[in-house]
Structure formats: structure tokens, C-alpha cells
């Protein structure tokens, strides 16, 4: 290794801004390894003030962000709106518009494709409706603080997923979304009734959703009951679910030895 004094003495030239860029530069023999170590260990959390506007801009430019990242990015942009510097505030407001605009455009495209499919088709765009519901749900999540807009988009999401299954049984894959929407709307009783209709006593997903809904209804005994049932189905559980189950009902049966209990 050349040592970190490299950064003080290196000639002006290509300076990658991301660890990925540094790695490529090292692979191409353009920079010493220190550059990657530096780039990958000196990463500042995106939401740490003072904000790193370059990093925020880089992230904002990506159109493939998941909802969690988008939510986090939006909360940072909201903070930027409150800054005294007009340009920074403007960047915050326009950044939020850009994030929301992506959803609105996707929703519009889905609606257009639904209109094209028409009601006469065999399955009138149920996959499209499900995707539409998901986009509405995420857009609602993006409006976490503005409760009336959030509720509006949640209702749209619910109407879309409902329309997708007007005649048929709700498939397991859409169940989570539907319960998520109902829980987000605060319609816990309706979510519970939906789960009761499904009656899949041995399905870990349904049981986990049951536990979630019971938790939101303040029915902690029921939560524990669901978790006890779940503890017998350890193989069907993921890491996160296993932790929840072990918290409420002790280590699931068949859990690997030495597994942490919480």
C-alpha cells in the first residue's frame, strides 16, 4: 500500500466520487488501493447534517429507488426546504416534486394500459391493477406527514387491489398488500375479517399478518397466540419473523442452536 499520504501528494486528476468508481479505477490500475479504502470508509450518512448535497443529488437522479430509500430521501429534502438558502430550499422542493412525479407518471401509464385493455378482456388487467395498487400505496407512504393526502392515495390503492380481485379469491401474494393498506388506513377490524375469511391456519404469512393486525388492535394475547402457532412453523419463517416470534413466544421449535432470542 502507498499509505494515506497519497491523498496529500497525489497529482490533480481523476477522483472518483463513489466506492464503485474507485474500485473500477483501481482495477484499471489508475489509482492505488487507498482510494477505495478512503471512498468506502468515509461515507457520510445521507441524513447527517450538514447535508452532503452531492450525494443527495446522485441518489435523486436514480429512478430505481425503493420506497424506503425514497421515503428517507424525501424526509431529507423536506429538511432542505426549511433552510435559509433559497437555492437549497428550491432544490428540496423540486426534488420532492420529482419523486412524487415519478409515481404520478407511473400511475398514469398504468391507467392508460388499463384503459387500453378494456373491460372485455378475459382478465381485465388484474396484474396492472395490482401494480397500480402498489404504486398508490407507495405514494401514500411518501406522504407520511400529510395525513389527508396519504388517506386519499391509500383509498385509491385499496380500490385498485379490490378491483383486481372482484370476482376471484385474493392470492396470497396480494394479501400482504391488502392488509398493509387496511392497517395503514387504520381499518384494523376490516383487516382482521379479511384474514379470517382466508382461514389458512398453517400458512406462516397469514399467521404473521394475523399477529400484526392483532397487535394494532391492542390484542396482545392474540399476538402471542399467533406467535405460538408460528413457532411450530420455524422452517417457513425468515430471520426477521423468527426474531419476532421468539420475542413473543420463545425460540421457535427447530430453530438453530445458539440463535439469539430477540
Amino acid at each position, binding site marked *: 500500500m502507498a499509505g494515506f499520504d497519497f491523498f496529500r501528494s497525489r497529482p490533480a*486528476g*481523476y477522483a*472518483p*466520487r463513489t466506492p464503485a*468508481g474507485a474500485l*473500477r*479505477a483501481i*482495477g*484499471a490500475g*489508475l489509482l492505488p488501493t487507498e482510494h477505495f479504502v478512503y471512498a468506502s470508509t468515509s461515507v457520510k450518512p445521507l441524513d447527517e447534517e450538514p447535508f452532503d448535497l452531492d450525494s443527495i*443529488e*446522485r441518489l*435523486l*437522479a*436514480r*429512478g430505481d429507488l425503493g420506497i424506503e430509500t425514497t421515503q428517507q430521501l424525501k424526509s431529507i429534502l*423536506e429538511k432542505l*426546504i*426549511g433552510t435559509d438558502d*433559497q*437555492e437549497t*430550499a*428550491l*432544490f*428540496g*422542493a*423540486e*426534488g*420532492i*416534486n*420529482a419523486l*412524487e*412525479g415519478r409515481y*404520478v*407518471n407511473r*400511475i*398514469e401509464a398504468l391507467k392508460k394500459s388499463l384503459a387500453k385493455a378494456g373491460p372485455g378482456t378475459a382478465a381485465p388487467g388484474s396484474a396492472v391493477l395490482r401494480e397500480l395498487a402498489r404504486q398508490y400505496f407507495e405514494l401514500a407512504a411518501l406522504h407520511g406527514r*400529510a395525513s*389527508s*393526502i396519504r*388517506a*386519499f392515495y391509500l*383509498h*385509491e390503492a385499496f380500490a385498485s387491489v379490490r378491483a383486481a380481485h372482484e370476482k376471484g379469491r385474493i392470492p396470497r401474494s396480494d394479501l400482504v398488500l391488502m392488509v398493509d393498506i387496511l392497517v395503514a388506513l387504520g381499518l384494523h377490524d376490516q383487516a382482521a375479517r379479511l384474514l379470517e375469511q382466508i382461514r389458512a391456519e398453517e400458512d406462516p404469512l397469514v399467521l404473521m399478518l394475523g399477529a400484526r393486525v392483532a397487535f394494532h388492535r391492542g390484542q396482545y394475547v392474540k399476538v402471542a397466540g399467533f406467535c405460538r402457532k408460528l413457532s411450530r412453523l420455524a422452517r417457513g419463517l425468515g430471520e426477521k419473523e423468527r426474531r419476532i416470534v421468539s420475542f413473543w413466544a420463545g425460540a421457535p421449535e427447530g430453530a438453530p442452536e445458539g440463535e439469539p432470542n430477540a
Partner: protein
Amino acid sequence: MPEPTVCLILEGSYPYVTGGVSAWVQELIMALPEVRFILYTLSPKRDQAIRYTLPPNVVGHKDLVLHEKQRSTARPRGRMDALVEDIRSMHSSFAARSAPDIEGIFRRLPAGYFMSSDAVRNPKAWEMIVEGNQAHNPVYPFADYFWSWKSAHDIAFTILGQGIPEADIYHAVSTGYAGLAGVMARLRTGKPFLLTEHGLYHKEREMEIKRAGFVKGYQRDMWINMYNDFSRLCYRYADRIISLFEYNRRRQLEMGADEDKAIVIPNGIDIPRFASVKRVKRPGFHVGLVGRVVPIKDIKTFILMAKIVADALPEARFWCIGPTDEDPAYHEDCRALVESFQIADRFTFTGKADVREFYGFLDVLLLTSVREAQPLVILEAFAAGLPVASTRVGNVPELLDYDERFLSASKDSESLARSVRYVHDHPGEIAELVKKNRETVARFYDKAEVYRKYLALYRGLAGGLAGGLAGGRA
């Protein structure tokens, strides 16, 4: 002395695209019938439809299509290698964020010479491109860098190779490519170059580029740097630089504009047209927004504010006054939002309308935009006798006299609703404020005065004077 002939240099606006800047240009031309105007337009494609009736004092129009391949009819003066060395030195100055002296380069570049071919065929010029790739993009394919470089530079080469219409003054209505053409005209003809900026071109483009997912990192930097460099050149070579308000003038000074050359001439309005609006109180409390239904106006925040106010003031009515056809998806989303809030019976999207009808009965005007320069609707409302509450954007804080009761952060619907409630709850105080605002508009924002200033500038510049105005507020 005959009145001057002014060549207006326009990019992406008049007379092909409607909008604020285009309307301003049309009105300027019509207000100064004694001045002869020649339009030099920079267009993305040929044969666009002209959206305005050109006034009779428009005596010429040359349209330059930026993406068309040009054939050189002249050669550079002196050795090509020496020209490339000057260009290399220019880029070093740009890298140091300063505006270089490019007069030497222009002495070598005659009209009719387009550099795009030599820029890739001359070995020294090619070396510069390769070095640029090494400095900015060595780990990605050279082809990516090359095509980005080419698309960014070919437009500039097209502009620099063109002859410019003959005129006494060259007046660019933005920096960017129009500004570059203005610099070129200044250096090639020795005639004065006047720059008017409504917004800040390089800042607006930067915002667009940063949000565009399809522009890669190094391409982004290349485009942003280029627009910043164009602005720096404009600020160096313009004989007068006009902004609409002091905040933007400060930004121009930061980018190298000379304090004595940079002046503020705010936009004005036709005061009698709005002051003559007959105000008649209607039952209820009427809140209006004048603007296109597009995301930049943030109509959703207006709707959210409406919901909050409607819950508190059952008599409140809301008017969104402006075209709805520019972004149908956004309009549909807004309309659905109004319905979902169950305020559709109290909320109206008027579509395109004569705003004076509404200024006659609105109780307060709201502006929820996330971006504005100097919004004329505020001046119109003031002249008509309306109080205004707004987001803190562009020149709005100055227009609202930094009165925090009527200013909110962008997207803060609750704060905007509080401002509306304040207007509702304090009629006596608001009446006093309205009177004061009317006087301010009449004093500082009379359109007739704006045109008088431009005429004085044109005459001063054509006469070889310093433009007849000192730096600062004109």
C-alpha cells in the same frame, strides 16, 4: 440620431413557445414601436409554428437550427495548433471557475468556420479530448465520453460558426446558447451586448440535469460546467446585465459580473388594467390561485391548504385559475384529490380565464409555487387591491415586504392555511396593507416605466454611452 436596430437573441422561447419570457418579449417589441427589432432564434428543429403575431417593427428573423450539420465555408485565421492552444488555455480558466479572455480565439474564428470537424481531426485537438477523458472518465468506455463531449460541443460550434444579423445592439434574453451567441456578436462586430435574465439559466439547467436519471455522473458535470462557463462569459462580455430582482443580481456578481454593469429592472404590469378592476364583495370567503396546473406551481399544496381552511371556514371557496391542459396527468391527480377531500362543491378549476373577473371578488390570492422569479400575479393582485400569501420563492419575500405572516416554506400547506385565516380574521389590518401594496406597485412596477428604461438603455448603448444607467437598481 435614428433609433437603434436591436437583434433579440432567443433560445427556446419567442416566437415559437408561449410562456412568461415570450410574452415579455412580445410586449417589449410592441411597447417600443420606434425601435426596429431583428429576431435571431436558436431552435431544436426546423419550421416550428410561430405562436405570436409579429409586430410591424420586427424587421427581420433568422432561425438557427442547432442540431443541423453545418459545412464550413471559411478557414480559421493563423495556425490551427495555435488556436487549439488558446482553447486549451480557455478550458484551464474555466476549470478555475473564471471567465477567460477569449478575444484572441475569436480573432482566429471567422463566421462560416465550424470547428466540429477540426476538433476531432486535428491531432492536438484530439489530444485535448483524450486528456479530458483521462481526467474525468478514465474507467468508463471512451466512446461514452466522446459522444457526450460531441453532443455538448457541437451546438456551441454551430453557434460560433454562424454569421449574425447586422444590428446596432445584440440583446440576449438568457445566458446559455443565446448568451453565447451574444458574446460572439459582441466580439465579432464590436457592437454592444445587452443581457436580460428573467431567471438564472445555468441554475435552471443544473436543476434539470441533476434530476435527469439518464444523465451519467461525468456527463452531468460536463453539461453543468458548460452552462456555468457560458454564463461566466456572458457576465464578462455583456455591456449591461439586467436581472429582475436583487437576489439574482447578487448571484450574477458572484459569477463574475461587474457591479457597475449589473442592474435590476423589475418586470412591471399594466397598472390601469388591474387598478380598474371593480371589487365587489361576494358572499363567502374566496381564495384564489392564478397559475397553470403543473407541478412547479404545486397545486396539490393549494388543495391541501383548501382542505384545512374548508374545515375551519365553512363559507370558504377556492378557485384555481389557469390552464389545465399542459400536464393532464397532474391535473387529473389534482382533480381526484379535490374529490377525495370532499370539497369539489367548493373548489373550481376554471381553466384558462380572464383573471380580472376573479380579482373582482377574491378575498385573498395564494401562490404555492416551488419556483418563481418575479411573479407578475402578485403585482396584478396588489394593483387590483387583493392581499397575497405565498411560498418563499424567488423575489416573493421582497414583494411581500418580508412579512412572515404571509410567507411560508414551499409545500407547507398548514402555514399557508394560517396566512389565509389571518387575512380572514383581520379585515381592518388587511385593508391598510392592500392600500400600501397598491402604492408600491404603482411606484416601482409600472410596465410603462420598464419600457422607458429599456429605451434609454438601447439609446445609451447605441450611442456608445455606458447605457445611461448606473449599477444597482435602475
